[in-house]
């Protein structure tokens, strides 16, 4: 089950980014360009197939309440945000529900990283073949990887703050936690 969950979460995130047309500013041939995240096709049919397998799994585990709640959320999302968003979001929630039920986190992360490694491997093949003058069949993966990198890069200015000021934040956090603990003890 975990390989399907891992695949579903990756495809779900891709579909969600595509549906919301998130933007990023990648550097392509030395120029910073504006780009909207786009897969070029819809992953909805694939995600629906995977969701059907997962729903079947939920029924075998007699998790009817969870299935009903997910069905309700997906219908609401469908009316407000359309089919693509609804399917992507529901598949991610479905993955979360099954994972929390089974608690097989290590298996899940192993498969998730394995699938991401295949994706990264395909992108790497493109960059390795490029200087050899070989027409790469992996250009799509490399382009998608570029967009993902620059989309996630939006977090960098935030990450830098704790990174630079950890020398101050760490003792501060300890002090605050110490105060909270003594306060709780007094109560």
């Amino acid at each position, binding site marked *: 089950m975990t390989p399907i969950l891992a695949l579903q979460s990756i495809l779900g995130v891709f579909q969600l980014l595509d549906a919301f047309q998130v933007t990023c*500013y990648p550097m392509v041939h030395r120029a910073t360009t504006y780009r909207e995240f786009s897969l070029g096709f819809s992953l909805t049919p694939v995600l629906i197939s995977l969701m059907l397998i997962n729903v079947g799994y939920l029924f075998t585990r007699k998790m009817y309440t969870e299935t009903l709640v997910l069905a309700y959320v997906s219908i609401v999302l469908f009316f407000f945000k359309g089919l693509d968003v609804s399917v992507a979001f529901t598949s991610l929630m479905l993955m979360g529900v099954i994972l929390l039920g089974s608690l097989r986190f290590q298996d899940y992360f192993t498969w998730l990283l394995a699938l991401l490694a295949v994706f990264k491997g395909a992108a790497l093949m493109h960059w390795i073949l490029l200087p050899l003058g070989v027409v790469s069949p992996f250009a799509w993966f490399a382009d998608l990887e570029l967009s993902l990198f620059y989309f996630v890069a939006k977090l960098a200015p935030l*990450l830098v703050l*704790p990174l630079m000021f*950890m020398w101050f934040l*760490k003792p501060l956090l300890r002090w605050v936690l110490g105060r909270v603990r003594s306060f709780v003890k007094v109560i």
Partner: protein
Amino acid sequence: MALLLFSIFLSVAAALYPHSPFVNPEGNIVGVDILHYVEIAEIVDRDVSLAFKVWGGHRPIIFIVIYGFQRLLGSDVSTAVNFLPVILNPLMIATAFFLAHEAFSDGWIASWAAFFTVCGYQVTVGMYSYFLTNMLALSLAFLSLGFLFRFLRRFGKIDLVLSSILGFLLFFTHPWTFYQYLPAIFLTGAISWYRNRDKFPMVTISLLCFVSLTLVGIFKVLNFVGFRFFPVFSFILATSEGISSFWRGNTFIFRYLYGGLLSYVILLSLALIGIYLMDRKNINELYLTGFLALTSIFFLIGTNMIKSRLFYNIPIGIFASLGFNSIIRLNISEDLKKILITFVILTFTVYLFRSLANLV
């Protein structure tokens, strides 16, 4: 050791990759500053003593290195400058390994530090902007600190002398990097003295000895050649934009400057974990924390360009290696460990080559 060799191989490949005719069919220049280097190196090529006069005489070492490399290749100045990263990249990787090894006495951490340095922004941004001087300076700083840390462990006089000589050379390679790395030694010495007031302050004396040896050398040359003193601090204070524009500047640096190459979120996340886990009781880790603390003050008030250069100089590969090793040493399955290592190697190598391919 295999990872170190792989990292060195990657660093050489990184220097050659953007020059490939299929990656760069139009033969565009690779780095922003390359033309300045060629121009000045041509002057030095006519008379090598001019290395101490060009660029205000602040950075003679890099032009002597270019001059020597050019003679070694038997090529023209332009070719020597274009291919200098072939020696600078592996040098930086090897010195990062050395520093991490001396700081943590752990070959595994040191190997990953080398890998995260070659596949981190120090090589990609270095190639993008062609920070030849800065890259050489980082190598010297890593080497100097490595010998200093070794001295603090073994108290071998040769280590201290080597460390001081390298610190001295660092000043004449890239004063900015020197000023960024030196004050933390004072701070570490002071904290160490405060903590060990009752004991014989060997560490403090050693650190002061290192600083004084380096400074004596610098003052002698300053007196002899007549350089401007401390231009960096006055420049930072004079151009300070203050805290009000901090966030705007921060976004600019990490989103647009250097093509957004500084914004490697996985690297930054690993480094963040590493920094969090550092133990200030250990003198080496105390230095690294002090270095970050002092850097962060100027990072807070400096201009965008200063901030970006301060951030570039942080030994991010070493911090990332600490963070990654803490994850690997968690109680996780062997399969997950193996796949995590594979994923990290692939994702970092993709970052390196993708960034280099888009430089031209």
